[in-house]
């Protein structure tokens, strides 16, 4: 009887895996490529109460149209849709970098552009009131924007096509500004290491490890 039960479970799992793999293969493949190219946006192990939904974050509402130019449609467009456009554009840059020719200048340009866009968004978020980041959605937006900025900046640095002088200094400025802001937020307790994924840029993780929380600005 036990053996029959075991057979049934095995058959079920096998059937589910086979049919599931057949159906989910494209999604799994695209998720893996995005994961490999820029790393996960937010930590998979983060506390669900700490990180919410970045696309609907109020800070994204105030900042996204400074980064994504949709022309006169900006008043009609939902900020979460503009955020999606930014994410889709970056995904395209990641896939192009992964699948395209390594010396393709367009691929390098897209990566630099993505780094600058995410850097602008992250800087705008950090410029808001520090307590804004006590909100899980705002915190998730901040984590995602920062992680993506550093991932694309690293990718641009590693690509064979050189980064134009002006763009390089813009990226460097963002990088300095964001690292400073990260330090502050680590001290304020608005950010902890667990908020970031395991594949996050080492400079972020170093700050998260080395800096200590001095006060919790989210406590009322």
């Amino acid at each position: 009887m036990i053996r029959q039960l075991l057979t049934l479970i095995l058959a079920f799992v096998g059937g589910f895996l086979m049919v599931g793999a057949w159906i989910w293969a494209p999604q799994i493949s695209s998720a893996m490529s995005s994961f490999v190219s820029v790393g996960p946006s937010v930590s998979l192990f983060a506390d669900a109460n700490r990180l919410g939904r970045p696309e609907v974050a109020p800070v994204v509402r105030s900042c996204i149209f400074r980064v994504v130019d949709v022309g006169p449609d900006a008043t009609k467009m939902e900020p979460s849709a503009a955020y999606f456009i930014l994410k889709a554009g970056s995904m395209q840059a990641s896939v192009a970098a992964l699948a395209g020719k390594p010396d393709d200048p367009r691929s390098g340009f897209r990566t630099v552009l993505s780094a600058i866009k995410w850097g602008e968004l992250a800087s705008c978020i950090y410029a808001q009131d520090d307590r804004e980041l006590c909100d899980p959605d705002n915190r998730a937006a901040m984590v995602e924007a920062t992680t993506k900025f550093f991932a694309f900046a690293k990718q641009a640095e590693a690509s064979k096509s050189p980064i134009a002088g002006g763009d390089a200094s813009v990226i460097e400025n963002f990088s300095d500004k964001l690292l400073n802001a990260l330090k502050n937020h680590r001290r304020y307790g608005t950010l902890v290491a667990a908020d970031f994924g395991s594949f996050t840029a080492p400079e972020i993780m170093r700050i998260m490890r080395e800096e200590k929380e001095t006060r919790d600005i989210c406590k009322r």
Partner: protein
Amino acid sequence: MRAAFVLGGIFLGVNLINYFVLGHTGDYLPGGQRMGEWKEAKIREACYPALESPERDELLPKLTSNEHRVDWRDLNRAKEMTAALNCYLVTHPNAICERNNRAYIIDYINRYFATFDEMMNTAKRYGESEMSTVRNLWDSPRNRAINAALMQVTGNGRLIKADFGWTVPAAMKPLLDRYKGTTDNCPRA
């Protein structure tokens, strides 16, 4: 015996995938004389024009406040589902009398209420003001017309509890219970 178990397992797996992954929930509605094949429903194609540009329809759900946490995909889903169900029930009030259409429409009613419940569950995390934003979103003139049509089709027996099987939406239960036993007034061919 073993082969039967293996086939049984595969059958179960395929059905779970069909229901949860592919979302073919209509395949699991009760059969019988009243219910046909949802895939064959003519009303689906007849209502394609209603779904072409829902943004032009001012009577569809829209957000009343800028301070909300509704994702644009959920907003679009609310608009599209309302436009579609409005077409199935309000624009074509007799469509539900045809067996295939009835199966399709019942499945769609389930999805409509499930989407509302899902959005309300998300809104709960943000408190009463967000819940009220979502409630207002789903209270457009088209949604109210759908509610009126649902009352009518349950009142005249075109829709009964047994049609839903084990998936009766919570919002529909009191209505279906109130008109239990009503014979349907569909025009006979």
